[in-house]
């Protein structure tokens, strides 16, 4: 060991205890609770790959895009892995409860961060709403299979509310319990779906019908793969609550799209040979498709579990985003309230789930006929968030002087592709006279500047605290190697404290 390092360590033994203890703004959350497995559980459940596989099987079987479809799904997976790599440039360096929202702030500043925040809220709420609605419907289907015929909207509303309540309770009960529960649930449904595809006879056909798509087939398949993979980065919301977060979160963000992509490609290949039709028939047409009662029940149960897990994953992730915004006072600070013993942001969870339930009710009552528009808005929001984080990674790494040729290439590639996809989707919407998607994109882009202007007017101090992440605490520093102080804006800084004379 060399002289300066030894001197620093010797100083540490004699150093006086630090005066003021500076803590991370996110210290209230339950710390160092989640293991690698828990994080993978969170990511996988948010994605709910079992449901994605069924929908990919549906499109591959009914529209029959052939090998092109499989290649499209594989290529899309590759792009998502690149996005994941851009995100890990942040997760390797900071842990933030706001995930992409906090990351984009580090690279692009307040306005872009608020655009990303809006996009994430729209994206996660959108997924949560549609999976909750589908989950409730599947639960009622199971009831009907069991001989419990409950027509009308009343039972459906009750089911939605009960599912939402269960999600909120589990999410508040504790993040670790929730992630383990959903990993188990999701694994069971995956095993079920994969097994069904493996044992199904080849060459089956289906009578299921597809919803109308505004896009041509392959771009639509690519967008659907992105939507089905949405949430692969949701482990990033849990950095402050994970053990060795900079390592475990980064690993999870990279591994998840690879695993899910492999599952999707498997589903697509299985459908090419006609093995997907059994599961599609069982899920979409029930016993009418000719599938046996037991198979239909098993498939529906697996799918219901998967929908439920996805709702839970979204609620957990979304609540951390709201919590982070509450801490920064970008949203009402009540959202930052953390339960005394459970250490979970219970108000943020409740708010997110309540809006999801309300949204699911509206979704089914009003927009059920046109889910492709709803999905389109969610897709645009997510693609915008992923594109912004790629741009942000470029700027961030340049700012801290840690960029390499590969990080630049990946960021530029994702930026161009994401930007192109957004423009393409908007143009496609306009040419098909479907103005909702382009308008949503415009609304998203102006949301940042508008939100910032409102904050400037109402809560100017929040503009100084935005971008909160798990900053270094006094106890993390080697005593005597520097002092953590708060500057006049309340931002932490490390200054050299009284040891200058010893340093050469």
């Amino acid at each position, binding site marked *: 060991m060399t002289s300066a*390092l030894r001197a620093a360590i010797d100083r540490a033994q004699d150093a006086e205890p630090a005066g003021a203890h500076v803590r991370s703004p996110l210290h209230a959350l339950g710390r160092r609770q989640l293991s690698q497995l828990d994080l993978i559980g969170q990511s996988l459940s948010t994605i709910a790959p079992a449901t994605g596989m069924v929908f990919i099987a549906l499109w591959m079987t009914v529209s029959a895009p052939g090998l092109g479809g499989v290649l499209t799904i594989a290529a899309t997976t590759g792009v998502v892995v690149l996005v994941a790599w851009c995100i890990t440039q942040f997760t390797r360096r900071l842990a933030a409860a706001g995930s992409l929202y906090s990351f984009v702030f580090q690279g692009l500043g307040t306005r872009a961060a608020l655009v990303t925040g809006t996009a994430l809220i729209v994206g996660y709420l959108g997924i949560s709403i549609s999976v909750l609605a589908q989950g409730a419907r599947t639960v009622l289907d199971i009831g009907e299979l069991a001989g419990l015929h409950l027509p009308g909207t009343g039972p459906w509303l009750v089911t939605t509310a009960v599912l939402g309540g269960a999600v909120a309770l589990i999410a508040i009960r504790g993040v670790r319990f929730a992630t383990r529960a959903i990993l188990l649930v999701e694994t069971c449904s995956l095993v079920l779906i994969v097994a069904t595809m493996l044992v199904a006879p080849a060459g089956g056909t289906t009578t299921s019908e597809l919803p109308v798509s505004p896009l041509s087939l392959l771009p639509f398949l690519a967008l659907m793969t992105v939507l089905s993979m949405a949430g692969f980065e949701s482990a990033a919301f849990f950095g402050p609550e994970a*053990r060795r977060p900079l390592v475990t979160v980064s690993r999870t963000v990279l591994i998840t799209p690879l695993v899910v992509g492999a599952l999707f490609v498997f589903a697509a290949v299985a459908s090419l040979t006609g093995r997907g039709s059994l599961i599609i028939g069982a899920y979409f047409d029930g016993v009418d498709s000719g599938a046996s009662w037991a198979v239909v029940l098993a498939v529906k149960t697996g799918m219901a579990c998967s929908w439920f897990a996805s709702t839970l994953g979204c609620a957990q992730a979304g609540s951390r985003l709201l919590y982070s915004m509450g801490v920064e006072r970008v949203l009402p600070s009540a959202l930052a309230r953390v339960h005394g013993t459970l250490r979970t942001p219970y108000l943020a969870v409740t708010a997110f789930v309540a809006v999801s339930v309300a949204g699911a009710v509206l979704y089914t009552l009003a927009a059920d006929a046109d889910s492709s528009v709803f999905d389109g808005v969610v897709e645009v929001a997510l693609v915008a968030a992923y594109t912004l984080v790629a741009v942000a990674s470029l700027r961030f790494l340049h*700012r801290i002087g840690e960029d390499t040729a590969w990080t630049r290439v990946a960021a530029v590639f994702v930026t161009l592709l994401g930007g192109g996809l957004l423009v393409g989707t908007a143009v496609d919407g306009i040419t098909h006279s479907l103005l909702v998607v382009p308008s949503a994109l415009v609304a998203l882009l102006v949301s940042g500047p508008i939100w910032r202007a409102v904050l400037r007017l109402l809560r100017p101090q929040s503009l100084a605290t935005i971008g909160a992440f798990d900053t270094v605490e006094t106890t993390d520093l*080697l005593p005597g*190697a*520097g002092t953590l102080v708060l500057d006049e804006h309340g931002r932490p800084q490390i200054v050299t404290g009284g040891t200058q004379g010893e340093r050469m």
Partner: protein
Amino acid sequence: MTAHVPIRSAETPFGGRQPHAVQKALGMLEAVAQLGPGTTAKEIAAFAGVPPATAYRMLNLLVADGYLVRVPDLSGFALGRRTAELAQAAAESTPSESLHDVMEDLRGCTRFGLHVASFAGSRLRFVDQDPDHEIVAITTLSKSLHANAIGKLMLAHVPGVGPDAELRRLTEFTMCERESLARELREIVSFGYAKECQETRLGRAALAVPIRDSSSFVVGGLYLHGSAAKVQPDPDLVRFLVDGSARLTGLL
């Protein structure tokens, strides 16, 4: 922000070539210590002579494990609390390197021959011999325990090891009576050292003190020999040996 967990030896965050990687990592910690808090990754890479891409990857791991922290604007580094554990690790690992090093150090302080013998398995076996002072007819020592200092030390301290049925006479000074041998063995235990004066070989005298393990069991001996005129059990020489054997505690 960072976890204060014990170092897990099963984790190998730096990949295959450990010693090289550890050297690089220490070089980067040294850079931060030298350049002060706020040092950027580029400066650290240049200081430690590590390619930038490798440096960035290793810096992220050092931060993840708490040896370094990132300053709040994320552009630079400061030493983390776990760096202090390195001093502990260094202190713990130094002695285990070198029974031989300690012996070389001791040999530099005396003009007599110094050897270490182990009593493991109730056998007398020399494990570190003085290259400058050969023991003439070394095998006789283990064959006639009653006639030399290290053998008598072993007889006195190791249970179950007794003298031969016939106490062979090697010189006119060899002790061949059982009663006086038993008395001398008791003295060895109470005085803490064993002596030998021309009992194996004319003109040679020697002293021996026990070497203990970390639980204070006698596991070997430190053997000093020289000419009979000069090696005497005088207090200074005995103290030198006792201090020396204390430094060897736990190393055998």
